[in-house]
């Protein structure tokens, strides 16, 4: 049993303490925008914000994040207005298959919060998500566009 504060709502989920946050979000809360890719905190498809910091939700348990502010891709748009990263993503037509993009967008949104005008090197250091389609060129373009939005 864990109390999770997700996208501003507190939700009581009936799971074991060691359940990865990813699976509680997807299966118990029912928000499927956060994706499973590897389960070992490598690929970043499951990236969410925990107290504003990008985290790989497959690598943290529900008990570790109980009471903390968790934001998923579904909660990124505030008050029905898309986040500037989402808007930049649409303008640059970034996604191909799109499966990694929730995690990519969440990682970028957290980066821009911390570093509003990242250089290419900053981006290289901070964004470590895997995209097998290879959208990186558009990802970089959209990050700069969002930073300048």
């Amino acid at each position, binding site marked *: 049993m864990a109390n999770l504060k997700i996208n501003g709502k507190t939700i009581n989920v009936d*799971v*074991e303490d060691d*359940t*990865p946050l990813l*699976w509680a979000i997807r*299966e*118990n809360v*029912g*928000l*499927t*925008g*956060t*994706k*499973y*890719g*590897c*389960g*070992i905190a*490598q*690929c970043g*498809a499951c990236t969410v914000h925990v107290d504003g910091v990008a985290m790989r939700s497959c690598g943290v348990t529900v008990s570790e994040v109980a009471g903390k502010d968790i934001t*998923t*891709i*579904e909660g*990124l*748009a505030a008050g029905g207005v*898309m986040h500037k990263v*989402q808007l930049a*993503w*649409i303008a640059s*037509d*970034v*996604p*191909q*298959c*799109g*499966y*990694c*993009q*929730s995690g990519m*967008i969440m990682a970028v949104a957290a980066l821009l919060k911390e570093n509003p005008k990242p250089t290419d090197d900053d*981006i*290289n*250091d901070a*964004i*470590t*998500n*895997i*995209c*097998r*389609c*290879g*959208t*990186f*060129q*558009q*990802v*970089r373009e959209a990050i700069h566009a969002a930073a300048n939005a």
Partner: protein
Amino acid sequence: MLPRTHEEAAMNLQVNQHIMPTLNRRAFVIGAATAGAGLALGLDLPFGGPSVVRAADGAPEVNAWVVIRPDDTVVIRIARSEMGQGTLTGLAQLVAEELECDWSKVTTEYPTPGQSVARKRAWGDFSTGGSRGIRTSQDYVRKGGATARMMLIQAAANEWKVPATECKVSNGVITHTSSGKTTTYGKVAEAAARLEPPVDVKLKDPKDWTIAGKGLKRLDTVDKTTGKMTYGIDVKLPGMLNAAIKDCPVFGGKVKSFDEAKISGMKGVKKVVPVGDSAVAVVADTWWHAKSALDKLPIVWDEGDNAKVSSETIAKWLAEGLDNAQPAYVGNQNGDAKAAIASAAKKVEAVYSYPYQNHATMEPMNATVLYTPDKCEVWCGTQNGEAAFAAALEASGLPAEKVDVHKLMLGGGFGRRGMTDYVRQAVAIAKQMPGTPIKLLWSREEDMQHGKYHPVTQCKLTGAFDADNNLVALHYRLSGQSILFSVRPEALQNGMDPAAFQGVAQSGEAAIGYAVPNLLVEHAMRNPHVPPGFWRGVNVNHNAIYMECFMDELAQAAGQDPLEFRRKLMGKHPKHLAVLNAVAEKIGWGTPAPQGVYRGIAQVMGYGSYVAGAAEISVTDGSKIKVHRIVASTDPGYVVNPAQVERQIAGSFVYGLSALFYGGCTVKDGRIEQTNFDTYNSMRINEMPKVEAVMVPSGGFWGGVGEPTIGVAAPAVLNAYFAATGKRIRTFPLRNQNISFA
């Protein structure tokens, strides 16, 4: 409550409209009665007719490809699968171009394979592999759009009692030129759907295109930025349970026994079921519970003789195939290469090899199945709806009219989701729990260890020169695995796998670009037990590395510039040469590169397209490679969406270079050693070079886009590596040579 009907089940899914079928199945009952033969039906592409077929919302079909709603929304049916490559948008552009509709009012939907079969394959081939999505359906989808346009204009003309020739259309608005009367597609669609389709349908000259040929935005982007897009893994059905599966880690092995009692008390566990004779699945309330229990389930395997196989034993067996005394299939030859080599003034020889690769789609394999004795429905991402349908037919044992497949967005395909193993497994599990929807999801570990791998090959190349350093002979001897032998044995030609010669074939869609007086290209087929599959680029990958790296070796031996050396051999292949020249010019071949930067070049033909690539790299300490810049050129005949072609080109380099640097699946004790992205890594943004696409469509043919350029990714970089270091790398991945990204 379980969904009682297909429509209810579909409505219970929270899915995106672009990809969810909304056809009313009842409309096809008459057709279904004639569909007993399943997929063994001829192609009968309908372009409309007197009896109106309706979509689920009642809107009339003008024909199978085009539904128009009263509010002028145009629903374009897409049979091929979208997996990121942009086919959904590109095909819609082609239909919309001929239809002359308002692009801003276009939406798309997938017909189901069951519906297609019930209508004598109304939508033709569903298969989305081999870069075929657009090139092999462009003619009939454009005809579908053009036919619908003519019927819509005719319907307006009938209403106005004027000849259709006096009417014109633009953006879905029909105008009677002399009277100025106008109407819209939405208003005449009902009448148009009742007309006999015209027989004489003329397609536009591509030079007149206004929707196709443009870099329009994809139709599926928004939902991919909000988390709303529904992939197979996201399917939710009422009462659904989740399954995790473990197949025998040694391919060909079997389950001997498993001890269900050890996990049956674990939280959420509902059932433990055998799947075929080689796998076990745990069904639980959540997938996490299923997977956690499966990890604790004692399973005893009968691994069989394959457990003795390793990468070393495979390599040894393949190396024996390089011996000319061993039998081999001849794929391409002219002159007498062996004799010319024997008498040559100078000869050069090299042996290359290329490893297994996993597709590693971001979304692991999965399928959701609801089975009852009266119905088997499958929800999954698949590159081939009809193959998934056929797999569900066979695995369920039900007749065609009781089976259907609902396609969802694919979290990557790259060839993997053209296979149907995961569909068969999901049906086999659901069949043991009738009435309960089951979602089968593979763990990443299962996905890594039960792939359909890029085949393993070796190649011995021998080139011979005359006294003037002219190349007089080339012997290309390939040894290794055939994909078709395993996947489509019926496509073998007297035992030979014609696809093994992709990129080095005499003619066709993957023809060699060089004319050598004495040429011998042959394949000693050796098929290890590891299951092969079509992996983006397929046999072009290794063939292009072998041929293009060796071309550089030959140029070096002849003391000539790699570009000039190639050009001399390409006089009879002007289209190959044109793309090579295009990249050479754009990268500045022959002009000084920036300090410390070195260039490499390569070309190949695959999937009907001519492609070339050039790389600029720098190397630190002989082993740290920074890829600064890639120029890649393609001549696919026609470009339907340049923005998407550009993205496919860039993406193909990520896929190809990931495999070159990080990939390589190795075999130990009969199983694949790599289990996740920690041991089978993939490029990140910091390793991404700048990729510049040069599109030189020359027209008159239709080539593919998704795959061809992957062929030149690795050899362009490897040839640049030689330019930088003087070292040839002939076995891969580069990590095994302690070479990495800088």
